[in-house]
C-alpha cells in the first residue's frame, strides 16, 4: 500500500438507473401505477473527488441526491456506468476482492437477521472477514459494551431491540473488522445524543489510532462540522461544492453572523426548491 496513494479516488463516475415501462397487459388492465414510458434516473452525475489517507470526508446532500448510490459504488455493490473508483490504488471493479478486504459499511438501515442475537450476527459478519470465533466473540463483547449495549441484550434476538440499539450493533459489525476505509451512510440516524457522541468518539479513534479513512454521509450538520476534514455537497447527483467546513462557510458568509454548515447546505441545495416553488406560483 503506497503511502502517497489516495485512500479513495472517484474519477468522473456516472451511474444511471433505468425504470422500464410496465408491460402492456398491466397497462391495459390498469394495474400499472404509472403509464409513463422508459425512465432514466441519473443518480450520480460525473462525480470526482479524492480522499487522502486518514481523512474524514463528508458527503452532504438532500434525500435522493445520490449519496447512498455513491457509497454503494465504492462498496462494490453497484457497478458504475462510466468512470473509475480506486481504493488505495485498487480498482473496485478489476480488484474487487482486494477492495472488499479494506472496506466496511454502516448503512442507515440496520440490516440484520432479526431473529438472531447481536452476538450471532456479529460472529457471522466477523467470520466472513476471516476472524476466528473466539476472537470475534471477544472483540464483539468489547465493542458492544463500549457502545452501551447491555450485556443482557447480547444474546437476545435483534428484533427485540430498539432502532437505536440495532444501529449500534451495525456500527459494531463494521468496526469489528478494522477496515482501513470505512463507509458510513448516515450511521447515527436514530441514535440518542449520548450514543451519537460515543459513535463520534469511536470514529475519531478509528481514524486517529488505527489510521482509518472515513467516507461519511449525514443529514446532521453538527456531526459533519465536528467530524469532517473536508465536505462535498451533492445535489441531483452532482457535486456542487467541495471544501473544508470552514471554507464552505466562507462561501455563504454575508457578514451579519457567522454562517453554519446548515446555511451552506440550504444555500447550495435549497435554491432549486425555491425556484420550483416560485415557478408553481
Amino acid at each position, binding site marked *: 500500500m503506497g503511502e502517497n496513494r489516495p485512500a479513495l479516488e472517484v474519477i468522473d463516475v456516472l451511474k444511471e438507473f433505468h425504470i422500464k415501462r410496465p408491460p402492456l397487459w398491466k397497462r391495459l388492465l390498469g394495474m400499472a401505477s404509472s403509464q409513463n414510458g422508459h425512465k432514466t434516473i441519473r443518480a450520480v452525475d460525473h462525480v470526482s473527488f479524492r480522499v487522502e489517507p486518514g481523512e474524514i470526508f463528508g458527503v452532504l446532500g438532500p434525500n435522493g441526491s445520490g449519496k447512498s448510490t455513491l457509497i454503494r459504488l465504492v*462498496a462494490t455493490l453497484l*457497478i458504475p456506468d462510466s468512470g473509475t473508483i480506486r481504493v488505495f490504488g485498487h480498482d473496485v471493479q478489476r480488484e474487487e476482492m482486494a477492495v472488499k478486504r479494506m*472496506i466496511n459499511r454502516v448503512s442507515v438501515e440496520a*440490516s440484520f437477521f432479526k431473529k*438472531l442475537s447481536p452476538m450471532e450476527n456479529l460472529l*457471522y*459478519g466477523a467470520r466472513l472477514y476471516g476472524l476466528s*470465533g473466539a476472537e470475534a466473540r471477544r472483540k464483539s463483547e468489547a465493542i458492544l459494551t463500549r457502545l452501551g449495549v447491555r450485556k443482557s441484550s447480547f444474546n437476545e*434476538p435483534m428484533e427485540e431491540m430498539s432502532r437505536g440499539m440495532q444501529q449500534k450493533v451495525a456500527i459494531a459489525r463494521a468496526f469489528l473488522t478494522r477496515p482501513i476505509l470505512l463507509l458510513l451512510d448516515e450511521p447515527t440516524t436514530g441514535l440518542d445524543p449520548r450514543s451519537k457522541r460515543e459513535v463520534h468518539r469511536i470514529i475519531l479513534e478509528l481514524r486517529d489510532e488505527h489510521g482509518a479513512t472515513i467516507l461519511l454521509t449525514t443529514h446532521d450538520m453538527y456531526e459533519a462540522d465536528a467530524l469532517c476534514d473536508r465536505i462535498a455537497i451533492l445535489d441531483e447527483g452532482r457535486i456542487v461544492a467541495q471544501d473544508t467546513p470552514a471554507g464552505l462557510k466562507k462561501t455563504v458568509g454575508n457578514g451579519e453572523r457567522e454562517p453554519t454548515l446548515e446555511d451552506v447546505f440550504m444555500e447550495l441545495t435549497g435554491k432549486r426548491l425555491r425556484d420550483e416553488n416560485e415557478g408553481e406560483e
Partner: protein
Amino acid sequence: MLETLKLVSRQGYAFVARNFHLVKRYWGWELVWLIYCIVNALSITFIGVGMGTLTGSQDVDTGYLVVYLMIGTLVWQFLSSLFENISQMIQWERWEGTIEYTLMAPVRRYVHMAGQTVFAIIYGLILTGLIAIVMALFFELDLSRANIFGSVIILAMGGVSFVGIGIVASVLPLLYPERGTQMAYIIQALLLLISGVYYPVEVLPGWLQTVAKISPATYVLEGMRRALLEGTPTYELGGYIWPLLGMGIVVLPIGMSLFRAGERYARRTGRLKRSG
C-alpha cells in the same frame, strides 16, 4: 496456503453456523415442518399398504410397494431439502435485508456456495433421517438384499447435480426480485412430476419421459430402487452413476457461472437492494 485454507474454512463455516443459529431461533417452525414432512411421508407410504384393498387384488406385493414409496419419499425429501436450502439462499437474505452485507464481504462465491451446501447437506440428512426413523416404526422394512453402499454413491452423485440446479435457481431472485422464488418452486415441482418419485417414469406420456431423462432425480430414484429393492451390485449401477456424474460436472460450473453473471447484472442494475 495454510492461511488461505484457514480463511476459506472460517468463511465457509460462517454460513453453516449462521444457518444453524437460524434453525435454533426458528425452532417452532422447524418442529412444524418436521411434523408436516413426517405426516406427508406416512400418508404417501400408506397408499402402498392400501393398494390391495383399493384394487381388490390379492396379488399386490404390498411390501415392495411400501419400500418403493418410502424410497421415493425419503430421497425426494433429501433432494428437495438440498434444492430449497441452496435455491433460497439469496431470497432469505433479501427478505432479511442482509444481502448487501453478505455480498460486500471479501468472500469468494464458491466459498459462499460451499458453506451453504454443507449446511444444506447436514440439514437434509438430519431431517430425512428423523423422518426415516419414524417411518421405520410404522412399516416393516426388508433391506436384507439391499446394496447400501451403491445407494449412497448414487445419492451423493445426485446431490452434486441438485446443488448445481439449486445454484441456478438461486440466481432467479437476483434477476427477478418479485417473482424469483416462485420460479424456483416451479423448477422443483417440475422435477417432482417428471422424475418418478412416486411412480415409474414409464407411466408418463412419451414426451415427459423424454424430459425425465435430463432430470438427475430420475437416475437417483431408479438407481436407488435397484440398489435397495433388488440388491443390484454397485458395478452394475454404472447406468445411473455415470449420467449423474456427467450431469454434476456440467450443471455445477454452469450454476456457478450463471450466479456470477446474475450477481453482476444485479449490481449493474441496482437490484441487490431490498426494494429491488
